[in-house]
């Protein structure tokens, strides 16, 4: 067996982290993307830019700010302590929070594009057919934006799997809690355990390729609004 228990633990942890992060991002990213796609408020620019920040910021910058913000003296850390949660740095919860921030644009932007592409008309049609805005969202917008949701989920998941800098900064490299695959690979390289690094890195490469393959396959046959 080329992968040992700690490698498998890292893989399982990574899978858990990416799944949970994607789920949370779909839940909170959907309203954000919807708002960004529809609003005419001047806040659209600033909020859109904030959501997109992780695209351009080095992950270490995000990680560093999170380390400070989530720490005992940071405003988020104060908030989690006030809520009785303690601080979340060095915990799985902390990683989830970091990943949500880090992968946000990869979920929000495809959704926003999908929502924008739907346009005004289907919503108007639904309204004249007695669908309330909520009803319309679930019966018209969600099905029409399905390709966007698929893309967003795949990108969000994959990007979280590939996350490294943020985890490094706030994770603390704790087995089964914060030691994800990317960090495990880095560990192996650092410790000059190149064989193990190869196996994990190779697995990650294959995984990434398959994910992108799925993504491109799902984009074909995108339904157009008639």
């Amino acid at each position, binding site marked *: 067996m080329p992968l040992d228990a700690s490698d498998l633990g890292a893989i399982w942890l990574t899978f858990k982290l990416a799944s949970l992060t994607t789920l949370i991002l779909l839940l909170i990213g959907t309203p954000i993307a919807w708002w960004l796609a529809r609003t005419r408020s001047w806040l659209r620019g600033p909020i859109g830019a904030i959501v997109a920040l992780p695209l351009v910021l080095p992950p270490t910058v995000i990680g560093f700010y999170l380390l400070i913000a989530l720490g005992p003296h940071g405003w988020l850390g104060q908030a989690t302590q006030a809520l009785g949660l303690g601080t979340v740095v060095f915990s799985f919860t902390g990683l989830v929070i970091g990943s949500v921030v880090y992968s946000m644009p990869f979920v929000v932007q495809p959704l926003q594009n999908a929502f924008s592409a739907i346009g005004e008309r*289907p919503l108007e049609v639904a*309204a*004249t*057919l*007695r669908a309330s805005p909520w009803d319309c969202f679930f019966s018209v917008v969600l099905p029409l934006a399905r390709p966007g949701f698929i893309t967003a989920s795949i990108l969000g998941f994959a990007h979280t799997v590939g996350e490294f800098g943020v985890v490094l900064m706030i994770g603390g490299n704790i087995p089964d809690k914060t030691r994800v695959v990317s960090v495990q690979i880095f560990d192996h390289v650092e410790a000059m355990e190149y064989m193990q690094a190869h196996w994990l890195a190779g697995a990650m490469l294959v995984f990434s390729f398959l994910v992108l393959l799925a993504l491109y396959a799902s984009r074909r046959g995108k339904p157009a609004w*008639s």
Partner: protein
Amino acid sequence: MSALIQARLQVAFDDFRLDVDLQLPGRGVSALFGHSGSGKTTCLRCLAGLERADQAYIEVNGEVWQDSARQYFMPPHQRPIGYVFQEASLFPHLSVKNNLIFGWRRIAQHQRQVGLEHACELLGISHLLARKPDTLSGGERQRVGIARALLTSPKVLLMDEPLAALDGPRKREILPYLERLHDQLQIPLIYVSHAQDEVARLADHLVLLEQGKVQASGPISQTLARLDLPLALQEDAGVVIEGEVDAHDAAYQLLDLKLPGSDLRLRLTHEALAPGARLRVKVQARDVSLSLADDSRSSILNRLPVRVCALRAGDNPAQMLVSLDADGTALLARVTRYSSDQLGLHEGQQLWAQIKSVALLG
């Protein structure tokens, strides 16, 4: 006219102002007619609540839908309307059947007055139910769109140039269905169009919009004959007459059409129709000539005694437009200024109108 639909609307966009006070009858087809940019679609969207007018009072059948004075705005999904868009805008992810019942499922059972079968039969789409929208022709799509709107059992049916996106044959495919709606349903229909032929065929009531203002509003038979409107100046100016089928002369294949509220008749070559049926014809101004006496030696079939109501110069200085009253039915005639002077045309004058051709609408 029992004004059952009232709408006072004021909307200001950057480069456009709409300021109208509409009183539309609670039955039949009301056409909002005007050039593009005249505000007719905006009116319709305001009625539906898709556009929120700055100042608005909308009341339909005694129910207030919007009253900006009281800050009241009924959201579009609560307004009992059916709306047909220019492009059918069917939901691509749903089958024809699921498109059709989308609105139907969302109204209370006791409010459902139009059933799926009835709507499909009216629009001739029963064979399409299992199909997906992207496999339909443009005409079929629009018929499904109309049926879908009908299935919400609306109190008012709003149509925004439903034929504009279709080519000639597709238009001719749909028009009969619209006429059936007109004849068979009790639902008032507000129809936005810039195509005079559609309006002439379908409308009972005509609202003429120009640059965000109402220029004229009234029964189509009267409005088209008004000399003070730009309509009278158009090349194909004329009136629409809805007559009642009377006797039929089988030997000559001539059908008598009684003018509304009168004993006067128009005759046209046509096969027999059930007496009492309503038939719509158009009489163009250029096909009406005037004569001081009834000339029975003429080949012209239709000669009616008329009274001159008004005269005005045409936009060509050689021509005059004359509006006429044939025992309650308005007619329009275009004659040369020379003839007008020769006949000494003046208001109140009695003379004979010779109608060279009567065009059946539909």
